[in-house]
């Protein structure tokens, strides 16, 4: 707490939101900024408010820009657009105008899994792993990433499993079941000898969840994965193709 430069923490609190949103002006702003120099608590408070304000911008509706926008941006940056046949996959981004729930989430899962590869796995804060770039992109990128689709007993696609065999090894899975209830599910790996190893459990919210584990088991022995309910009911299975 601090009461320097004529503004107490209480007084600062009454204008912190305005400061965080960049709409505080004049003497109040000068006093508030001066107070921040002296008070860690208020600095953290206003940082949180700033992040909240930034997050609020994410709620604004997206809008399609005018035709040719991307070309004008590329020209402005002086970056040569790739020829159309050099990036066929890019055209599929147009489908994001009306994405399917499952496919969008699977893309996110794939992105997270790939980020784990690209970033060198600096820890196991899975949901934050896309936020780490400290590991660089070089040494682990070429290591094999095995991927398998989780399917239900009725052959409906329910998710995706990624098994990374580099160092360190890791497993990541995302599931988005047609049953949209909240529940705890259990992840098991199946080995070449037919043994089932329970790796852990995680929570599905609205039928959706993503989960990962470091170094689950010698990856070369893994032939498949499955998700079960807590009562053992198998919800989805996946089979990795052999090397």
């Amino acid at each position, binding site marked *: 707490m601090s009461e320097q430069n004529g503004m107490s923490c209480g007084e600062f609190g*009454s204008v912190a*939101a305005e400061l*965080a*949103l*960049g*709409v*505080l*002006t004049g003497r109040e702003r000068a006093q508030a*900024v001066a107070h*921040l*120099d002296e008070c860690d608590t208020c600095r953290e408070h206003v940082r*949180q*408010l700033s*992040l*909240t*304000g*930034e*997050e*609020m*911008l*994410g*709620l*604004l*509706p*997206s809008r*399609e*820009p*005018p035709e040719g*926008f991307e070309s004008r*941006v*590329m020209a402005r940056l*002086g*970056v040569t*657009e790739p020829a159309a046949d*050099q*990036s066929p996959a*890019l055209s*599929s*981004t147009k489908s*994001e105008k009306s*994405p399917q*729930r499952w496919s*969008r989430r699977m*893309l996110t899962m*794939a*992105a*997270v899994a*790939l*980020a784990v*590869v*690209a970033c060198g796995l600096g820890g196991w*804060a899975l*949901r*934050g792993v*896309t*936020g780490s770039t400290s590991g660089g*992109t*070089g040494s682990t*990128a*070429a290591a094999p990433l095995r991927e398998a689709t989780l399917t239900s007993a009725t052959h409906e696609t329910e998710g995706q499993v990624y098994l990374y065999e580099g160092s360190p090894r890791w497993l990541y899975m995302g599931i988005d079941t047609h049953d949209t209830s909240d529940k705890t599910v259990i992840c098991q790996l199946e080995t070449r000898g037919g043994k089932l190893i329970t790796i852990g459990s995680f929570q599905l919210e609205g039928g959706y969840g993503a989960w990962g584990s470091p170094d689950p088991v010698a990856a070369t022995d893994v032939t498949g994965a499955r998700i079960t309910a807590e009562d053992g009911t198998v919800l989805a299975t996946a089979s990795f193709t052999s090397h």
Partner: protein
Amino acid sequence: MAAPELSIGPRTRGGQARETRARDKKPEKTAIPWTGSPVSDSVQRMGIPADRLPDETLLAGLGAGDPELSLAFVRRFQRVVFGVAVTVLGDPTTAEDVAQQTFERAWRHAQVYDTRRGSVRAWLSTIAHNLAVDVLRARTSAPVDPQDLPALLTAMTDTPERFAVAHDSAAGLRRALGALPAGQARAVAMAGIYGMTARQIAEAEGIPLGTAKTRIRDGMEKLRTAYLREDVGDE
């Protein structure tokens, strides 16, 4: 003294001056030189289509001047960036200019983007917002017609499937915004989206200045609480 923050637009909020814009200048990169592995090399080794790569990888590609990844980056975020700009400005022509400047700034500062401080989407949105508010403040007309606010707030608190999928982490904030008393929600939107001061809000709403300040404070505190709850839940 506060810990130093990035010197670019979105990181200057919370008491620090906004970066002076260099409009209409040929872009010159002043950021830290790219020293990592060529992004496209890694991508090709992995055999991954560009549109499936993480946001941070595309941003790295943009910073490195990789044509394919740059295009993928622009395509991924152009609707978000233009959406912010046109919401704030209302004028598509000016909004496009702001959106183009946003990508230019992202390109220039790609190497100093700090992933620990937020998502690429939030970073870009804030750049676009800061640029748009700067333009707005240069205008003499009222930043927003109060009649337009209900539609905007409805759009921001709407929870159709596409939003739930595209930006799950914002769900708590969206709910909190939707639960705010109307006066607080309007004040938060006027200040947070249109960059209006408490005095401007008081005049637009016909309320005392103190009431406007209280609405901003109370509304933002509720949103902060919701944001922190969601953020903790994500860890």
